């Protein structure tokens, strides 16, 4: 067994990989071992994995329903106890159950924003960087204009026009969060643009669209992913802020920001109603921040420790 593991390691860390697959796996292994050495990054990874598990098995984990009201005479605003770990809210609902189900909403927001904003930024950045000239000037001007906007206030205005709701909140956040990805993708593209292999592909007759899509974008993906991970916490906080202002998920949805807003009315006497969802937001955001820091250090050793 140990012998097996040792040969595997030797194969992965080999200085002279025999195949492209071996080289690729070897690189991934090197990045992983750098990442695994970072205890905080591993803690972040653990938090995010836990979040994924909780969201996946929410129905099994949550002891009560997240949305049906409890007994309003006996189950309202109960303090934390063995029966209700984090107490109950003003509708007699178990707060722990709502937090567990709320993890799905958080994941939904984060993933959807990333899926919308990152490809848009990647496309704009690579096209601008590869095309150069006036295309670059126009696209980057637009990017700069969006970068100079106040994100939260703009998202507020968007949601005000679109109407409150979780999907509109996601759209509003996505619209305001693509510019940094475009900047990063463009910077990477500029360094790749005159590489020999791009010239070779061009000589073989590849169209600009093919070059950008097949030969430049894949190389920009890793830095964009790092940035997206670092932005996840910000996305969660913005979504929670919108929820807190009543513009995100609508009741009785167990969105964490909205839960804080409803707990606000009882904060002086029943503090746990507002406290628990805040802690949940904090832990998940912290997880994404730690993971993002770790990924950056592992994938880009030059920036490590800064």
């Amino acid at each position, binding site marked *: 067994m140990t012998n097996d593991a040792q040969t595997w390691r030797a194969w992965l860390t080999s200085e002279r990989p025999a195949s492209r697959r071996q080289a690729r796996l070897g690189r991934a292994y090197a990045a992983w071992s750098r990442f695994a050495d970072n205890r905080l990054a591993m803690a972040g990874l653990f938090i995010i994995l836990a979040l994924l598990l909780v969201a996946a098995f929410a129905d099994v984990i949550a002891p009560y329903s997240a949305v049906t009201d409890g007994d309003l005479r006996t189950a309202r605003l109960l303090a934390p106890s063995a029966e209700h770990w984090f107490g109950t809210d003003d509708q007699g609902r178990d707060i722990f159950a709502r937090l567990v189900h709320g993890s799905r909403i958080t994941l939904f927001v984060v993933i959807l924003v990333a899926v919308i904003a990152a490809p848009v930024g990647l496309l704009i950045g690579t096209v601008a960087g590869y095309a150069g000239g006036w295309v670059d000037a126009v696209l980057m001007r637009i990017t700069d204009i969006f970068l*100079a906007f106040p994100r939260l206030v703009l998202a507020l205005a968007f949601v005000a026009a679109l109407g409150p709701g979780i999907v509109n909140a996601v759209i509003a956040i996505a619209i305001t969060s693509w510019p940094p990805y475009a900047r990063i993708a463009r910077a990477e593209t500029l360094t790749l643009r005159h590489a020999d292999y791009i010239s070779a592909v061009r000589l073989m007759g590849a169209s600009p669209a093919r070059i950008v899509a097949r030969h430049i974008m894949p190389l920009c993906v890793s830095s964009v992913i790092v940035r997206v991970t670092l932005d996840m916490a910000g996305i969660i906080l913005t979504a929670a802020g919108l929820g807190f202002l009543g513009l995100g998920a609508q009741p009785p949805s167990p969105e964490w920001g909205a839960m804080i807003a409803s707990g606000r009315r009882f904060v002086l006497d029943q503090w746990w109603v507002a406290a628990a969802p805040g802690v949940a937001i904090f832990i998940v955001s*912290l997880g994404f921040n730690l993971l993002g820091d770790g990924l950056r250090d592992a994938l880009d050793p030059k920036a490590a420790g800064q």
Partner: protein
Amino acid sequence: MALAGSARAGGRRRARLRSTAMAIARFLVVVALTYLGLLAVTFFIGRVIPVDPVLAIVGDRAPSHVVERVREELGLNLPLYQQFFIYVGKALTGDFGTSVLTSNPVMTDIRRVFPATLELATLGTLIGAVLGVPLGVLAAVRRGSFLDQVVRVIGLVGYSVPIFWLGLMALLVFYARLGWVEGPGRIDVVYEYTVTPVTGILLLDTAMQGQWEAFRNVFGHLILPASLLGYFSMAYISRMTRSFMLTELGQEYVVAARAKGLSEGKIIWRHALRNALVPLVTVIALSYATLLEGSVLTETVFSWPGLGLYITDSLQNADMNAVLGGTIVVGSVFIGLNLLSDLLYRVLDPRTRAR
């Protein structure tokens, strides 16, 4: 020889002047374009997204003659590009329409509430900069020490905790339980009508009028939300200071200064920090802009009658004119600070000034 030399110097000076003029012109174009972009986005939000912009502005409970009048005032029968021109023209003169909620012109409302936000954000940035810069410097100097870890934790928490939740918990602890500070709001009702508003910055107004009791009351209201914003500002500033200082301390001039026998304190505070200050100024300006924006959530928690609360109150009442007017004002300040920090960077950094 000397003549030729001075002629060349004159030519160089002219060339430099011309390049400065070019830089200023380019800067102004960027300002204009960015501002136009902001107006385009708010126009899009206010007039294009809503199915019926009139209803979005006057609300669905408005009587029909009001709806008709507003439709005419907005010029909704005109083509979209003409509407946009009119919109830009009005916005440039500070005309954002009338608020449904207060039935004042939006600009009048904003002028009334803005000083409260300014007071809060300024004190917050001040706290953040005064604590954040030294912390960041010390963390960089004693890299890996306990203090460095503390700065790291402050940063991580600052980037991960929802500001409105922390505000709520701070109110619970420091106001409700400990009674160390005053509660939500800006000033107690008792003092509200004894202070004549001059600047709108209540700390200044009360101090100028010698009303020290009211001053203490105002300070008691202000200190908690300002500390909260200050914490977030500090998290950002200390982290950036640390990173700038690490870069500076690795430079050769630091080695040279050490070789000359300069004291460590002089090297750090006089030489390295001075160079790090250039990018730091832009960081502090950006943090100020972020606080102005971040006050939207903080003001809601603390019932602070500033621009942020004005925007969210208008949002709850579907008062689109007020929301967009507030957005444009926050956006303008944000853009202004962004570009100002860019400009400051160029002015302060000798390397970008040289050519």
